């Protein structure tokens, strides 16, 4: 069969451009399997009283974290500042002003949200991050090269870096107690320790139903929104609140998985290594041209 040069070029261009941007717009992360059995935790912030038991339990179970004396978790002065997760803590409790009733401040616990379509997994160039079947997004320090792309990619700004450690720094974030408890059939340490039972561990689909029922039964108590149900494609940790989520420092994110924006660009640049080859070819061409020109002169 005779193929005209022109037709061949057309077809080739079309095919490779398809390959460049993905045939149907799907990305690596969105192709991850999300099973209906996946675990999650529902956090009802209206119940939290700010006792910091979860912080204490987290510090006790995660031996990687710097040790803190048990008494230090009774210190309430930490609430004066808005804290973030850092290399020394996978979870923090913050206190917020309650505009509905100034006498009753709102407390909220934060940790990795364990996204269904995690941006850190997508951004990591060495595969140090992975999402397990039960929903935990975990980190393998042996693979990590310390590029900190994960920190830039995370829409919740969760991963923290051990800047103080010069030789073997690690990226630190909540593990969902994957190795320490989940695989042994136990619930995460913070969930277990909470005296007010702010957190409920269970199947994510069940938790959404539970949360919806709570909003329906007590419409005055909650804002009608489950944070994490749809944000960035869904997260394993779900939140209920009595005050608008923006007042609790929750970012207003879209409902599309975060990697959906970054991957097409990130992958296109290195697709089949063609673009870099192109760059080298162009540079080589220029060199060759200049050399020839010089030789002619």
């Amino acid at each position: 069969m005779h193929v005209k040069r022109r037709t061949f070029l057309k077809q080739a261009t079309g095919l490779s451009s398809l390959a460049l941007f993905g045939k149907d717009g799907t990305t690596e992360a969105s192709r991850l399997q999300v099973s209906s059995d996946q675990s999650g935790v529902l956090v009802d912030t209206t119940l939290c009283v700010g006792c910091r038991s979860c912080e204490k339990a987290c510090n006790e179970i995660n031996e990687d974290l710097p040790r803190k004396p048990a008494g230090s978790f009774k210190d309430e002065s930490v609430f004066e500042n808005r804290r973030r997760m850092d290399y020394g803590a996978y979870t923090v409790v913050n206190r917020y002003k309650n505009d509905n009733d100034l006498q009753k401040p709102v407390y909220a616990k934060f940790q990795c949200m364990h996204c269904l379509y995690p941006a850190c997994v997508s951004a990591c160039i060495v595969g140090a991050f992975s999402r397990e079947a039960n929903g935990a997004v975990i980190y393998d320090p042996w693979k990590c090269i310390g590029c900190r792309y994960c920190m830039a990619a995370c829409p919740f700004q969760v991963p923290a870096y051990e800047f103080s450690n010069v030789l073997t720094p690690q990226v630190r974030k909540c593990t969902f107690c994957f190795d320490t408890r989940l695989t042994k059939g136990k619930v995460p340490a913070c969930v277990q320790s909470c005296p007010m039972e702010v957190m409920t561990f269970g199947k994510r689909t069940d938790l959404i139903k539970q949360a919806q029922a709570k909003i329906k039964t007590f419409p005055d108590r909650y804002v009608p929104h489950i944070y994490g149900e749809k944000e960035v494609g869904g997260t394993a940790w779900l939140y209920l609140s009595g005050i608008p989520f923006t007042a609790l420092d929750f970012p207003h994110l879209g409902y599309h998985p975060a990697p959906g924006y970054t991957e097409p660009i990130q992958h296109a640049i290195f697709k089949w290594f063609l673009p870099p080859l192109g760059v080298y070819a162009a540079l080589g061409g220029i060199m060759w041209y200049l050399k020839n020109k010089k030789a002619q002169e």
Partner: protein
Amino acid sequence: MKNTWTALILMGCIGICFFLLGRGTTLSSEEGPGEGLIEEVIIEEEDIEITRQPDAVQTGNEESVERAIFISIPDAFEDLDRAPVKFYHDKHALALEKEGCEKCHSRDEENKFLFTFPKERDESSRDALMNSYHDGCIGCHQEMTDGGEKTGPLTCGECHVIEESYHKKEYLPIMPEYYEVLRDTYHKDCLACHQDPAKAAEDAGGLDWKSFYVKEQPLLEETWPEVLFDYYIHDKHDKTLEEKCELCHYISPKREKELADEGKEPTCKDWLREIDEEQSLTERETAHPRCINCHLERKDANEEKTGPIYCKDCHTGIERTLEEMADVPRPECEQEEKILIQIEEDARAKGVAFNHKAHQEKTRSCQECHHETLRSCKECHTLTGSDEGDGITLAEAYHEVSSPWSCIGCHETEKQKENCAGCHHLMESGLVESACDTCHTGSLDSLDVAKKLPQPEELFPEDLKDELEINMLENEYKPSPVLHKQIVKKLTDISNENTLASYFHVEETTICAGCHHLGPIEKNQTIAQCSTCHTTRKEPERETPTLLGAYHQQCLGCHKHMGGTEEEMPQDCAGCHKEKDLNQTEAEKQ
């Protein structure tokens, strides 16, 4: 090849971005002024904090109480070129006391003030209106400056003070009323619910989805609070004006004729809040001339009792509590004290016995139930709903849980108040089937059977536990004491003092159900242990809290909602959990 070019261009773009970014950071770190600016701002903020503090202390000072009226008139001016003018009325009124209101306001044919501004107001166009304001204000200021008097500003920026917050505009979608509950932070955007808003609007009747977004007013704080015309103020007027209702209220010509025919005097029910067919006293344009003119006239006539003239004296923002108004007589309204609300003889539910007088005592103004008129519910809220009653049927008007106007809705609000919320916050709100009979008794006699709950020792003379201990966390803490008898006694007293509770807490053991929530307990019944249902291990498929969660949610939840003192109802850990002396316990073991 095309792909490669695309990728090349992309790479180029990214490269440029990085270049620019890098340049930006080096610039700011190299150039001193950039950093200096930030420092300056911080210092300024601190200064403000310090200067504001003494201000807050001098609340008695007249000038600090004064609130601004924002001159922005959104209908006429729409987008403002400059910040709205913060106008201090009382400051002007006090300075121009000698000249009187004539200085700024014109009078009508009856020689009464029309409280509009300026005197020569020209509303023909945006510019004309703007100019009339400018002439009115600056003209006077100029005149006084020429006369060598102390006066207000003459240049633009002095009145139109630039404050960023006034330019903030919010765009919110107009949603059907029943979606209003969704209007939290995350539902400002159509996209939150509709994947394709344009199509949804098109389907709804060929609408442009962008038309659902309205421009909200700039955020203007500090304006005067609304006047709450409560029983107290009404009573004051009543006494001073010797019950001349017609001075403020209006009676429809039709009703007046009817009354004249019957030879009756008008009663409260006939007086409307309107001053004529169209204008209501609740509107500022009507209320200001009506109220202030009357107050001014009385002042001119040197009457002993006269009303306030300055903004701050009416718009006090004071919400008198029921306790404060306990001695204030309620308006006499020729309404029977006790009525049986029964719309139809053969209605499915029995009639509701209603004590109007008791409800008057529990409200601050008639409007809390009667909206803008003083008519009975069924006149507007008909059985099938009418336009006058906003389509709300009579049954809904009485029973709608989410409405503050309905019987049930108001009772629900009461239940969430201090003293009640301790138990009720854990209970499902709304209509409970078993409770229909409590209201629908069909007989006026039911109003007399308000029950006082028996004291706990009368009810359980033998087996009422005095005090018990919870030692679930015995490894870490000493046992937590539960003053059982004291708690039951206190709750019984609270219930007996509350009228609403004394009607609805029917069973003798209602109070027990606050904690023993399996239902009112019976006298010789063994009470179920908490740990029977609330196990120590969380069962994933059950929503029941574990024992630890149940104790804390019950105890701490109640303490938080009851509004008691920290000593009485501790809310921090140490209040219930006394630290265990670990050394001592180890010594004991040995």
